[in-house]
């Protein structure tokens, strides 16, 4: 008898809750475009944020609502983007590929360390201890926070402890931009070949004391460049990318090679007059 009571009571409760759930499901139903799920499945699930949305799901919603075009996703392969565009019946939308660029070339072979840092081996931590041991305050500290934070294996530290970006793998997600305590990374369209690889606001010998490849603010690049292309601001050349910047002339007379030409295959190219660096070991303070 008692077992029957228990059975009925629980069974009744179950039934009641089931009815409640059914009612709630019908009453509070929100229509969601089924295409959002499908589009999301076609996206790379990297949730990197390169598109400007906080994840692939929200990007999918924006795609379906027509706010953006599939070309905005810099991570997925070309054919995946075409597939999404076909599925939604929209244009592919062309976004120029953008990549992370580093505004420093001061590796251990050319830039001095004033002090040896011991402690937590990250750039963030060492930057908090008197700005790190590097001679140049603006320069790359070389502990590779950017390499760690990159989800796409696009950043490798080279033998001189300077990060190198693999432009094929880079998706312009911007994680490295945030990770760098010195703010050396920026996301640039890949067509921006003319590049200033230095952030030091000092000039002349003050720069050369710390780093052999820093910008000494001599201004030769600004003089040689076509009108309005380069302006010297705070001891650094600033390239006005709204002008025609497809020229190698400005790099040719740079004495240190601080302004470079970023070649797809050959990497950063220095001008003819740039000092040639043969040192492979570490540059010491006071040494030549």
């Amino acid at each position: 008898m008692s077992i029957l009571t228990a059975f009925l009571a629980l069974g009744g409760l179950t039934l009641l809750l089931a009815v409640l759930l059914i009612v709630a499901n019908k009453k509070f139903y929100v229509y969601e475009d089924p295409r959002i799920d499908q589009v999301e499945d076609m996206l790379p699930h990297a949730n990197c944020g390169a598109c400007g949305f906080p994840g692939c799901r929200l990007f999918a919603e924006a795609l379906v609502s027509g706010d953006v075009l599939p070309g905005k996703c810099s991570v997925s392969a070309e054919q995946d983007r075409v597939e999404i565009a076909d599925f939604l019946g929209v244009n592919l939308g062309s976004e120029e590929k953008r990549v992370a660029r580093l505004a420093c070339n001061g590796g251990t072979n050319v830039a001095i360390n004033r002090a040896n840092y011991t402690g937590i081996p990250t750039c963030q931590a060492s930057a908090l201890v008197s700005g790190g041991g590097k001679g140049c305050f603006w320069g790359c500290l070389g502990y590779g926070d950017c390499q760690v934070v990159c989800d796409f294996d696009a950043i490798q530290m080279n033998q001189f402890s300077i990060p190198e970006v693999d432009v094929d793998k880079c998706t312009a997600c911007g994680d490295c931009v945030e990770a760098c305590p010195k703010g050396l990374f920026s996301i640039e369209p890949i067509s921006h070949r003319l590049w200033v690889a230095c952030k030091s606001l000092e000039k002349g010998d003050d720069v050369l004391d710390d780093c052999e490849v820093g910008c000494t603010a001599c201004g030769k690049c600004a003089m040689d460049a076509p009108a309005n292309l380069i302006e010297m601001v705070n001891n650094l050349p600033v390239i006005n990318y709204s002008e025609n910047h497809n020229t190698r002339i400005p790099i040719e007379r740079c004495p240190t090679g601080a302004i470079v030409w970023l070649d797809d295959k050959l990497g950063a190219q220095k001008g003819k007059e740039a000092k040639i660096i043969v040192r492979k070991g570490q540059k010491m303070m006071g040494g030549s």
Partner: protein
Amino acid sequence: MFTNQSNNTFNHGIHPPENKEETNKLPIRQFPFSPVIILPTAQHLGKPSEIIIREGQEVARGQILANATGYMSVPLHSPVSGRIRKITNVPTISGKMVPGIIIEPFAASGQEVMEGNPVDVNHATPEEILKAIQDAGIVGLGGAAFPTHVKLKVPEGKVCEDLLINGIECEPFLTTDHRVMLEQAEDIFMGIRYLLRATQAKQVIIGIEANKQDAADYLTGLIPEDLPLKVKVVPVKYPQGAEKMLITSILGKEIPSGGLPIDVKVVVVNVATTAEIGRLLPHGRGIQERVITITGPGVSKKGNYRIAIGTPLRFVLEQVGVEDTVSEVYMGGPMMGVAVSNLDISIVKGTSGIVVFTEREAKKDPKVYPCIKCGACVDACPISLNPSKLGILAKYEEYDKMAEQYNLLDCFECGSCSYVCPSHIPLVQYFRLSKTIVRKRIAS
């Protein structure tokens, strides 16, 4: 409210070797002017001051070089008579390049100082005194360099009952406050008169640790009859000199998390700052020099020196006979000071000492072992945080959790946890990093 007045100290804390005996008997001596003076405009917490002179101009000792740029800022006075060589970016201890002034002192630059308007302690209003303290460029000389007039301002609706003068100096190696108390008693008492008028406090207590009994006895014997002043000696323990710990030790009150001393009706001022107020305000001078301890195994002429602000560190080390084999230089003490990465920085208002270790004493990057959950750091933390848990969270970058659930932002980086950790985990460095990241996240 939790009280432990019975034992005159706070809970937890550590006892590092004091290492004060080599300099605490040495009187304060004047340091020579260096051939070049480097003055960053950001010597205090808050907004940097704004330069009002130009290159090539000749300035007198005590002349204002840069004006305060608002309430959280103080002016900068010239520490020497000389010519402005350059206005440019200069390096600072934080590693940042900030706008600064480079002065070449005249060979004949003497000790005479250009003076401003004196402030009469018996007639000035509290506001006038606070303004005078700001105009004198005075900041906390204990090391934090917080503008003193901001600290002394009792907010609307609050009262200050007790004024504590911090003569604890718990940091190992440093003896500046000790010497100031022994040599500048009159300045301290004069400073207290100004502070009393500015804060309207009812009583003043000078807190001194038991290892400076001579200073305590000396000051007690000289107390003017009209001052409501007491000297209280407390047992030696680190970090007793921290504001929160000092209030607990002397008054038995505890500041709530995230609160300020004024929340428990207290204002705390460092004893060197007090002495400087008493020394400068009667003449309307600005601050152009301060007392620092230069010590450590790497220094041959150890001592307490009155040194011009802006003296380059490289010149200081040359003068006190530091050999080339130096391997570690700290500004401040070894516990809360900052390791120097650049000898081109200069002495600033907040520099309380320079400690130099040779290669022999400097620790050789000890191997870091995993946390064994021994709880030594928990027993050491003076504000009863859980450094062990915080350290583990920091390693896994759970910064928000650290701030929200484990009161990370209450940590004042005294370093007691790192000091006792048997696994050599750089806990306080983790917390400093985490606090910076959390503050950045809050700000954005």
